[in-house]
């Protein structure tokens, strides 16, 4: 009997043999969750609790005032908060969809196609993964200026579309798909495009979901493009607005502190929601999808 303990991976229901795993995971999860709980409580704290001394972790008299302030506040240039939020949403959706699509396409070519330079391209991609963004900031700025992208909407989108990590991950996943499956489809007369849509995409959904989560976090939290490449207030993003609130708050701006707390919750929530939506894909098993 005990010999088959090992096949209890991905179990369907609770069994007391799983208790030891809960004993490890639950205390750890509680510890990991602390800051999230803090962000949530912090956003609902009235001013006197935000500045309470010593600081309090939990909120005692929750209030929505911080959110009201945030939504009614327009900054010195008269751009309402909702405009930044709108920009962020459009930019984020565009980047996530396009990144997932072009990474998966490129991953397919690099994994299953034979052509010159294939090895070299993947090697360069892996190298690019390692370059520190801070080091490229200046050359990148000069380039973006040359391309005439300064002060356009596109400047939020284009620099983020090629994601070396995404290509790396999806290529690793496609490598696990047996060549026979693709050969068989070819025998049946499927074109490359059909193979891509009907075989590759369904089988690498976990990788695609992972890239989507990653690229979402990258673009949603990015302030770089708004800070460096955009002067027009109306084209900046919510993450940037949020960062200005935080810096105001370090001064003596008492009201800014509460708005910054509310804004950090608004920044965090979409990350959480995207993860909840996509996690079932990430954790989906390929066992049911016909690979093995």
């Amino acid at each position, binding site marked *: 009997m005990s010999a088959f303990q090992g*096949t209890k991976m991905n179990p369907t229901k609770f069994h007391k043999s*799983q208790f030891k795993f809960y004993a490890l995971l639950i205390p750890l999860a509680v510890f*990991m969750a602390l800051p999230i709980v803090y962000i949530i409580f912090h956003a609902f704290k009235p001013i006197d609790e935000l500045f309470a001394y010593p600081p309090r972790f939990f909120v005692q008299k929750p209030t929505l005032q911080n959110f009201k302030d945030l939504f009614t506040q327009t900054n010195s240039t008269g751009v309402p908060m909702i405009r930044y939020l709108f920009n962020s949403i459009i930019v984020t959706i565009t980047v996530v969809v396009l990144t997932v699509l072009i990474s998966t*396409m490129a991953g397919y070519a690099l994994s299953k*196609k034979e052509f010159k330079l294939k090895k070299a391209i993947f090697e360069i991609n892996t190298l690019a993964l390692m370059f520190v963004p801070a080091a490229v900031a200046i050359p990148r700025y000069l380039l973006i200026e040359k391309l005439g992208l300064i002060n356009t909407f596109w400047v939020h989108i284009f620099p983020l579309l*090629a994601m070396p990590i995404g290509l790396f*991950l999806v290529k690793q996943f496609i490598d696990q798909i047996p060549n026979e499956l693709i050969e068989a489809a070819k025998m049946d007369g499927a074109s490359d495009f059909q193979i*891509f849509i009907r075989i590759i995409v369904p089988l690498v959904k976990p990788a695609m979901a*992972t890239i989507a989560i990653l690229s979402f976090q990258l673009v949603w939290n990015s302030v770089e493009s708004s800070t460096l490449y955009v002067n027009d207030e109306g084209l900046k993003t919510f993450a940037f607005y949020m960062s200005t609130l935080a810096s105001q708050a370090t001064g003596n701006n008492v009201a800014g502190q509460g708005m910054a707390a509310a804004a950090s919750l608004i*920044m965090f929530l979409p990350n959480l929601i995207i993860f909840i939506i996509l996690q079932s894909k990430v954790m989906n098993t390929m066992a049911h999808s016909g690979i093995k």
Partner: protein
Amino acid sequence: MKNKKDFAPLFFLSPYLLFFITFIIIPVGAAILLSFTYFNAIESPSFVGLSNYVSLITQDEVFMQKVLPNTLTFALIVGPGGYILSFILAWALAQIPKRARTILALIIYSPSMTAGVAMSVVWMIIFSGDQTGYLNSLLITLGILVEPIQWLQSPDYLMKIMIFVTLWGSMGVGFLAMLSGVLNINSEVYEAGYIDGIRNRFQEVIYITIPSMRPQMLFGAVMAVVGTFQAGAIGVALSGANPTPQYAGQLMVNHIEDYGFIRYEMGYAAAVSVVLLLIVYIFSKVAWKLFGEKD
């Protein structure tokens, strides 16, 4: 079939390559060229040959005595530590039913969701230097400390706290990939393993789980190497200054930012970043050797 010119690779690759070359390869190439120049971001760069590299090795005492050892210590603890931790957690999560797993995975992944700098706000309250800091007030109440410790300004503690906070937030992409890797192993493989004489969970992990998820293990390893060497924001965010107190938490990325954006010595900063690139490359080659496909 074989003689027919196949345009499919070009079709599938070109969108990626277009953006990859424009926004990554060209700037990186330019940064490498810049490392051989003196460039203050105002005048145009002037060629100085290898002198940036020479002074990095021979004259930059801060780099040799603090930054490089710090970076290696930090990376060698956080990299493998975070890697092993994320494998153990992914593996443990795979042993429990779906609903509980989803909730726990979400919580464990959540520190990576919030931008690292925003998170340091929470840690700053815990490690705050006066007696209102949670850790200080706890230790004083317990009678372990008499006076509050300036945790984040102290060269003795800053690095340890950075390692702790980074490990706590290191369940990122590598963790997600490993989780899907563990779950993707077919149970028949395990059954076959038991028939072949595997007796316990430890053997099961060594002989079946790890070999079956090589691509995800490799991805996790590369991400661990890259992530730890590129970390830098954390020390500055925690201590509130660049350079960090007595350079105790100074990592290579901070050194690059210090020279590039505070002193405007872009050429020198570019040289440091090329050295960083080389170090990361060497370490990920090791990871590749350990987990990569043998071909």
